[in-house]
């Protein structure tokens, strides 16, 4: 099988217990397949459910019904420890926000995904250095915690962390937002390299030119919004 990510009949509801137990249906009948070496863009207006679907694939949001199979694991039904193993070995996620333990040096933040799959610390460190260099994070910042960095710098640290380990599947939420032209070019090259090594990628790009360049096709999630809300 060439499919790395297979989403079938997925639905999502939110129940707001503290607001009159309102049940909000946000998604129904979502279907999507991503093959190895392929990049699929999620498109649709703001609020249509692009990030929601991405978070469900990562196991960050629960799935009400349907299946989300990533590398053979059905995230919609899997036990926490199976999802943790999937996230460690197979599925990477570059979110829009960097969330790290305070005081941990940038270099260690980037090397951490490698260390957790058992890569030798020296090799992990040199890979992290190479990525930070490519993403133009000045070397004098490597020993500092990224929590104090600018938005664009944090975004690049997040990308470096997401690309450090060669995940077979990657989720990218606005990877080129808040980047200058040079860094945007680097990130697009990183995505192309990941595709070339066979990674299946799902991305959200508001940057249309970037989307057209790296994505093989686009899925409009508006089609998954339930009717008659």
């Amino acid at each position, binding site marked *: 099988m060439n499919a790395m990510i297979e989403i079938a009949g997925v639905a999502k509801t939110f129940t707001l217990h503290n607001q009159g137990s309102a049940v909000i249906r946000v998604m129904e009948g979502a279907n999507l397949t991503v093959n190895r070496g392929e990049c699929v863009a999620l498109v649709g207006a703001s609020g249509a459910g692009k990030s929601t679907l991405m978070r469900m694939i990562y196991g960050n949001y629960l799935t009400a019904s349907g299946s989300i199979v990533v590398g053979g694991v059905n995230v919609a039904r899997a036990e926490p420890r199976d999802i*943790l193993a999937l996230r460690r070995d197979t599925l990477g996620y570059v979110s829009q926000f960097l969330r790290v333990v305070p005081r941990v040096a940038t270099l260690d933040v980037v090397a951490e995904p490698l260390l957790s799959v058992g890569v030798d610390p020296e090799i992990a460190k040199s890979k992290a250095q190479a990525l930070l260099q490519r993403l133009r994070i000045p070397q004098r910042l490597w020993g500092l915690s990224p929590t104090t960095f600018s938005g664009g710098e944090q975004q690049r640290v997040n990308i470096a962390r997401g690309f450090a380990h060669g995940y077979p599947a990657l989720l990218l939420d606005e990877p080129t937002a808040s980047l200058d032209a040079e860094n945007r070019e680097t990130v697009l090259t990183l995505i192309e390299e990941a595709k070339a090594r066979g990674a299946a990628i799902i991305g959200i790009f508001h940057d249309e030119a970037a989307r057209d360049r790296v994505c093989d096709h686009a899925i409009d999630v508006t089609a998954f919004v339930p009717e008659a809300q």
Partner: protein
Amino acid sequence: MTPLLSVQGITKTYGAHIGCADVSFDLYPGEVMGIVGESGSGKSTLLNCMAGHLVPDAGQVVFDTRSDGPRDTVTMSEPERRMLARTDWAFVHQHARDGLRMNISAGGNVGERLMAVGARHYGQIREVAADWLDRVEIHEDRMDDRPTAFSGGMQQRLQIARNLVTGPRLVFMDEPTGGLDVSVQARLLDLLRGLVRKMGLSAIIVTHDLAVVRLLADRLMVMKDGHVIETGLTDQVLDDPQHAYTQLLVSSVLQV
């Protein structure tokens, strides 16, 4: 894979009042589980039942021992359980003074745990103690000072060194960062995360601080009135809480 700890139907009542009721879960090697809930939700009662400090009214706490495989620690003999508590388990108290001997030196506090499992060579004990003080960022020249002369954060780090020196496989932590300054908390969290990964520890952390569990715990259990009301991956429970109480808990956190 065999769970390191398998908790089945743990119930503890205080007269008519429920401490915790029918709690069951499995913890696998290398996993860190957080237990959250407000004061009185039963999370500390549960932790103390698991660690052998309280005898549950019903249920089993099955631990995968090194020598005999899975054993119910509730029904094992007191000496056996004490030996387990000294070797394979560690318990980090909220108040460092509950877990330290305040009238002996920092080095002595660490060395005592080693001697309890049979270490006798003074030079070696001192060397291991010095190494552990270094790992928890306590300078060697403070080794002969008593913990009474330490700050709260240092006392907590010393307690962690004392607990981990014997290479336990399971660590129980009761509000490990409670009562510490935010900057000291961050340092301690960083330290704990590093130690958990390097030593392949499993841990159960009881706290009411959701930020602490987000950074430290893989899985989360939410308790209310003695019952487990929600479990799951930590980030999933915090970002997509299902139960009314969890939603309230998550939405009540002040954003910084």
